[in-house]
């Protein structure tokens, strides 16, 4: 069994989850509470990765992170290295690919909080930021946890976008889904089956957890 690919997969899923929990929370807050012109356009743009084929996302990320793309050029100028075919590159790709799965449940959780609770916090002297940290976040724990699990699962399952941005560098960008694909290509069904089998209990357990968290958040 390709343990290295499983390790890269879990590392990537964990990194994506941590990054997205930090990045998506303020975005979800703005979508839930702020009013600004073009909000629906911004929201649709954030959810766009959910509606695009992964290869399309991968294609644009190659353009962006490649040696001629602005992100690739900036990164190369700063570090001398490339973003493509690196763990950092696939982490960026995975974060972009999973953004909707973090923002949407968090926005739903934040929107469920009664506005009067926030008003109560303002009356008690809390700034909007403090109210976010001391009232919104603690009262959205189930929704945030559901978002984290969804992002984790979605990252574990990523394939096309990672293959395009990262290729298949063992220990660096070769994740389990790519390992399965390669094993099947080489007619090694036993190796593919072992990795594939390891996904099922993990994904099933996480999905049960999401359902429980969603039920709790909605209660």
């Amino acid at each position, binding site marked *: 069994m390709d343990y290295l690919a499983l390790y890269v997969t879990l590392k990537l899923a964990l990194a994506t989850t941590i990054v997205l929990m930090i990045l998506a929370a303020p975005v979800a807050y703005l979508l839930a509470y702020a009013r600004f012109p073009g909000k629906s356009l911004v929201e649709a743009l954030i959810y766009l990765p959910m509606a695009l084929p992964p290869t399309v996302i991968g294609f644009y990320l190659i353009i962006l992170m490649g040696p001629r793309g602005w992100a690739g050029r900036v990164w190369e100028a700063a570090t001398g290295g490339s973003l493509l075919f690196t763990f950092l590159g696939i982490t960026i790709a995975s974060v972009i690919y999973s953004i909707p799965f973090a923002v949407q449940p968090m926005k739903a959780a934040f929107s469920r909080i*009664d506005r*009067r*609770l926030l*008003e*109560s*916090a*303002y*009356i*008690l*002297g*809390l*700034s909007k930021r403090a109210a976010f940290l001391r*009232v919104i976040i*603690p*009262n959205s724990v189930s929704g945030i946890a559901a978002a984290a699990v969804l992002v984790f699962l979605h990252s574990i399952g990523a394939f096309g976008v990672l293959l395009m941005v990262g290729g298949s560098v063992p220990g660096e960008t070769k994740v389990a889904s790519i390992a399965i694909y390669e094993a099947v290509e080489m007619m090694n069904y036993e190796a593919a089956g072992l990795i594939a089998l390891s996904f099922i209990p993990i994904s099933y357990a996480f999905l049960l957890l999401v359902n429980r968290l969603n039920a709790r958040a909605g209660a």
Partner: protein
Amino acid sequence: MILSASFSKRLKYFNLELSLSCRPGKMAVMIGPSGGGKTTVIRMLAGLTAPDAGRVVFGDEVWFDSARNIHLKPQKRRLGYVFQDYSLFPHLNLFDNAAFAAESKKEVEELFELFKISHLKKRRPHMVSGGERQRCAICQALARHPRLLLLDEPFSALDVVTRRGLREELKSLKGRLSCPVIYVTHDIHEALFLADEILPVVDGRIDRGWMQRTITREPGEGAAARGAREPRLSLVY
């Protein structure tokens, strides 16, 4: 410090336009039919809703002045505000709720003693009765040393017996408060029992004749059944 406010706001069915003032230690009770604008007034005093025009002054501090484009945030007004419900944070126990913005925890302990909820300190809001929640909400508001206390139908969701008990507790507390208190209710007995001044608010305006039109004195014999502390009133609509 004296609170004085004069403001107007266009609402869906009428224009709200009224003035009020309240001295420290006094309680002005706004009463009137539902949808008359009472809660909007209290929200404008709190800074949660902006009037279209007018001025709200607390002592020598201007909280709102449409002409000078001043609108002090609720955070800066140092208020106590007890809502009908939802004042308490569900993720905190009663003590942490009351101590949320308190100046001293010892004082919160004393307030809990005063309101007889010390034994419930560790309970979450959903684990106690409506009356106990509102007692805690009052502790939360008072623990902040508010400069102005706003009570928006704080007891209306409670049963009659609990409401009567809390009303009496509030009345005895009133003498110890050194800030102006604005109280909203649609219960005439409550208004007469608590108020230093009654402000009948009807369709966004102070309508002093509303009380006259709504109330008649009740003959003496019915009073005993109501209890001596209840004002002797009956309503005629």
